[in-house]
């Protein structure tokens, strides 16, 4: 799956806006950008910390190899974090700029979210998509089974927040709810 100018541009735009972002967080932000209609074409699957794209991970590595970003081990935690590099071809910069509005919107929508918060939000969204028009209670049930440390009221609250921010349609209520 090739690294198109749009894919490269979006990843660089996010890294440049956030300055220092964990790889796990970048994955989730790209996931939400794609859910907003940005045509990235990444396939996401459920992984350790919620939806994850192996193709996106490959492209992050490719951009690191090209010195467009820098991927470093997080010495105090787990995984990797990403900062900007100095290789900035015009085509990538231009492609990223075309999606400025949506990138800014997604960053703003999840401002203040730490990795766990993003994990929960993205997992809720992903489960909703996988189950195909489920009611809210079913999504909460499945997410709680996958991530038992998140209590149902917390999951429900985040579900509603995603609805309010138009990432999810208004949930169907379960009968009697």
């Amino acid at each position: 799956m090739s690294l198109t100018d749009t894919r490269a541009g979006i990843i660089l735009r996010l890294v440049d806006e956030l300055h220092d972002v964990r790889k796990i967080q970048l994955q989730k932000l790209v996931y939400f950008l794609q859910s907003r209609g940005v045509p990235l074409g990444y396939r996401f699957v459920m992984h350790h910390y919620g939806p994850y794209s192996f193709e996106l991970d490959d492209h992050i590595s490719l951009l690191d190899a090209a010195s467009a970003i820098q991927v470093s081990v997080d010495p105090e935690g787990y995984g990797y974090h990403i900062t900007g590099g100095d290789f900035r071809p015009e085509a990538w910069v231009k492609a990223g700029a075309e999606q400025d509005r949506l990138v800014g919107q997604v960053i703003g929508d999840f401002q203040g979210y730490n990795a766990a918060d993003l994990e929960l939000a993205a997992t809720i969204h992903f489960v909703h998509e996988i189950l195909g028009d489920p009611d809210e209670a079913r999504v909460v049930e499945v997410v709680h089974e996958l991530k038992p440390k998140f209590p149902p009221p917390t999951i429900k609250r985040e579900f509603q927040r995603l609805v309010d921010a138009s990432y999810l349609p208004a949930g169907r209520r379960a009968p009697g709810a």
Partner: protein
Amino acid sequence: MREFRDPIHGFVELEEDEAEIVDSPPFQRLRRVSQLGLTSYVYHGAEHSRFGHSLGTMYLATLAFERLAGRPDLDLKWTQDEVRRKRKLVRLAALLHDIGHAPFSHTGEGRLFRQPDGHDHYGREIIRTTVVGQIIDHHGAVLGVTAKDVADILDPASITPDQFLKELISGEFGVDRMDYLTRDSLYCGVKYGIFDFTRLVHTLMLREQEAGGLVLALDEGGLHAAEALLLARYFMFTQVYFHHVRRAYDLHLTDVIAEALNGTYGERKYPEQTAAYLKWDDRAVWRLASEMAASGQSEAAARVLERRHYVRVYDTGPVPQRETIYRFDEMVDAVRGRYAGMVFLSDAAADHPERYRRTDIHVRRHAPQQWVSFAAESTAVAGLQEVFQMRLYTDVRGNRQLQDEIASFCHDHLP
């Protein structure tokens, strides 16, 4: 109990349902799917099949699971019934993880499948819809294991409470990788893939994530074995899986299979119906390739049968410079324009499923007791860079002057 004598693991024992699965036509087909495609054109011992690897993966999966389930330092709270159920689930999933492979394994995966997850899609369909699934459902009722459960473990997109079993089989430190690195090394006659997988299996852990749910982890005693796996992966990739001659044949063979599919179905994709897909194995391709070469229909088929591969004229090496990464496609277009009468094939490690990648896993240290990151702790693999090698091939066999001329053109265009 049925036994198979395996070159790596000694005796692999199968329970009644597993023996029935192995005897089924979809599984027997794996004897006719080569593990490494046409790597035998470079390393002539590499004639092993997906059959042995599937048994080996099941063997290691069982070893790893039983070790995890029995660890006194893991407070898993599984009942005996749950342990039996998960053990059966992981054995079946490991045994069947490659059942959907196409002829010559990964050859042509990016081009010949209509589904984004390629052979994995067919694997799940075979489990769900053929005699394999019927055997699982029939025998699995006692333990509460269904064909759908097994297919879900093999589906990265599925949601299952047994998420860690997916990782145990297919993860970066999973048993699939442990078996094939060792097996491929043996059959190729190289030593690159040798590492202490027994030590690694014995030091696997499970960790409860902050959000809940279990992930695969490692006891610190397995750190060096894990490093050795990554080194094995790196060297097996650069020396075997991405060998320039082997890859030339992957490209030619993909053309052969595409032509054979087109001749059969009128399109260059594997058929959608699982029953039709199962008719495709290495022997079917060889038969069609022989017919196409004999009738003069296929230049690619003739090349493969006569071992007349395209020669590489440009190679970036494992870690290309940044301008090269950005402008490789542009260079290829320029070469095609300059030498318009010739056919050029390009290849990129980025498209290869076995490309060496950085990875991380939680490691449990004992003094002090804490969880740390493998990527942060390991020094042996810190210097390894991800491989993004790119190559260009064309037909310049026997024409050194033209080969050098094209190579110069490429290097003038790119560093």
